[in-house]
């Protein structure tokens, strides 16, 4: 069930009613319902792997308890590393097995070995990149004595399988989630309304911005050899907005749904396009992944390499971002994507510390020239890496970027409409993106752009805003044929 489908809306309504009116007795009954709903949700998405999810849950739950009971030493380390190997092994097998074997075969064949390899047909369990990372983080935190293992199996499985986050994150931490569900949740009208508002905004980002950008992105990227440099550049811009609208839209919907149950999950995005340096960008883009990588990869690496000072930091950063890239997919394009982002950190590391720059142009309506050009430069740099994210292979990505850097970069961009063969300039979509950026800019201090929009206005005026957004969603569905695009991060 996709979040943007009618089926899911019916499912959510049913769970909401049951949660607050039937299963409301105590935390245990509420969690039982959430777990059952999550199992149904996962089975409807991919029933084949529900047993894998269950097995992962049981093994990690009991391993954590064993690790916590043992004194520091060889036995504890044995259980801990067994758990890590198991979780990483799951990911390696389901997601990367064919990729690694194929890569080795290609490498050997460069020396004339002449080996052939038929990839295995391995199905990818939905959400595996997210739930294995949660389990790995959990075991590490228990092993480091940072948290006590959860004693309550129901709470643990509710956390693991929680349907708003199981398929595409956020990568939630046990210590933030489980304490919330140990207590009975009381219905809070304000939080529920806030949740609905955030869902509305997430739907707008996904269905109006992301899905419509996807129409043009697919056309341009699939036929990049026929388009001018300016159109290819536009394709990069559209893809940047597509992926932002898609993933942050999903995250907003997930957060909003959670609020309906009076549960908070981490906000995965904080207006990354309004960053002026790469470090700030990654503190605002896919926040749960970045903080996971920081805590469990970068910090240990930089600690081990600390005697090498800045060189150690550079190596740690690049290795971390190589892993960030690889996490996204089993393709060299994702590795290059991560590598480029790691490289972007080098000037910052050599320069020294960063200025804290949480909200650009804080307290001001308009950014300064320096801030504006900083944001623009960063947008260009990060958008160019998305070419590797989107391309099928590295050669295609390089060819695409070379196509941008041509004389036709200064021509008027157009897209050829598939059905009619007519050249069109996507003006409507550009207007939508501009308005979207406008709203995001003015809401950048908030948890999500429209969190406080019209908060001080009278209700009828506020509702005009909401109806306008709903109209945009419906208009987009009708005008653009309602072709739904799957959420991009479902593939991870």
């Amino acid at each position, binding site marked *: 069930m996709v979040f943007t489908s009618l089926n899911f809306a019916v499912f959510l309504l049913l769970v909401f009613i049951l949660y607050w009116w039937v299963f409301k007795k105590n935390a245990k009954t509420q969690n039982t319902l959430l777990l059952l709903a999550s199992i149904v949700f996962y089975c409807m998405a991919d029933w084949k792997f529900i047993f894998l999810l269950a097995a992962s849950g049981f093994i990690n739950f009991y391993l954590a308890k064993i690790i916590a009971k043992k004194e520091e030493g060889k036995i504890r380390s044995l259980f801990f590393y067994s758990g890590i190997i198991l979780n990483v092994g799951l990911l390696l097998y389901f997601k990367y097995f064919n990729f690694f074997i194929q890569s080795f075969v290609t490498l050997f064949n460069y020396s004339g070995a002449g080996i052939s390899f038929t990839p295995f047909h391995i199905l990818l369990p939905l959400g595996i990149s997210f739930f294995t990372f949660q389990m790995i983080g959990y075991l590490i935190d228990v092993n480091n004595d940072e948290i006590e293992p959860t004693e309550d199996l129901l709470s643990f499985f509710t956390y693991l399988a929680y349907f708003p986050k199981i398929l595409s994150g956020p990568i939630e931490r046990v210590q933030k989630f489980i304490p919330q569900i140990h207590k009975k949740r009381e219905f809070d009208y304000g939080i529920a309304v806030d949740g609905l508002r955030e869902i509305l905004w997430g739907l707008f980002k996904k269905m109006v911005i992301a899905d419509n950008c996807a129409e043009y992105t697919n056309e341009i990227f699939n036929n990049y050899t026929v388009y001018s440099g300016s159109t290819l550049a536009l394709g990069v811009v559209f893809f940047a907005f597509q992926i932002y609208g898609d993933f942050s839209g999903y995250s907003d919907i997930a957060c909003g749904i959670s609020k309906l149950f009076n549960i908070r999950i981490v906000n995965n995005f904080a207006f990354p396009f309004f960053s002026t340096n790469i470090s700030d960008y990654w503190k605002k883009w896919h926040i749960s992944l970045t903080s996971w990588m920081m805590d469990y990869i*970068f910090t240990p690496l*930089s600690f081990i390499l600390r005697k090498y000072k800045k060189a150690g930091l550079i190596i740690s950063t690049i290795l971390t971002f190589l892993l960030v890239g690889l996490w996204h997919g089993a393709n060299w394009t994702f590795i290059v994507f991560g590598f480029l982002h790691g490289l972007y950190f080098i000037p910052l590391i050599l320069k020294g*510390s960063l200025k*804290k720059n949480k909200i650009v142009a804080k307290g001001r309506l308009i950014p300064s020239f320096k801030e504006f050009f900083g944001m623009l430069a960063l947008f260009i740099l990060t958008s160019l890496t998305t070419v590797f994210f989107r391309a099928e292979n590295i050669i295609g990505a390089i060819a695409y970027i070379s196509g941008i850097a041509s004389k036709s970069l200064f021509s008027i961009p157009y897209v050829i409409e598939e059905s009619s063969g007519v050249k069109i300039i996507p003006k409507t979509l550009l207007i939508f993106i501009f308005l979207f950026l406008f709203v995001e800019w003015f809401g950048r201090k908030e948890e999500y752009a429209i969190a406080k929009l019209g908060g001080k206005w009278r209700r009828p005026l506020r509702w005009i805003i909401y109806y306008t957004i709903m109209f945009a969603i419906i208009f987009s569905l009708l005008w653009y044929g309602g072709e739904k695009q799957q959420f991009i991060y479902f593939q991870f």
Partner: protein
Amino acid sequence: MEKVEILEKVRQILITVLKHEKFEMRDDLTASDVDGWDSLTHMEIITEIETEFNIKFRLKELNKLKNMATLIELIQSKL
């Protein structure tokens, strides 16, 4: 070594690494309170502290640090 002496040495290290003195050495001081004390400078600060006091931290110990008070306590425990 007295706590006051440790505090002063740590303060000097912070000034050297972060290149400013815009912070107050108080028990509840955390990295997020200090301009420039981030993931990039954190390890540099830790390394300087290890060199200054001739001690070695373990990663587990660093992960448990909450604020300046816990950092000073950890340094004292290793002297």
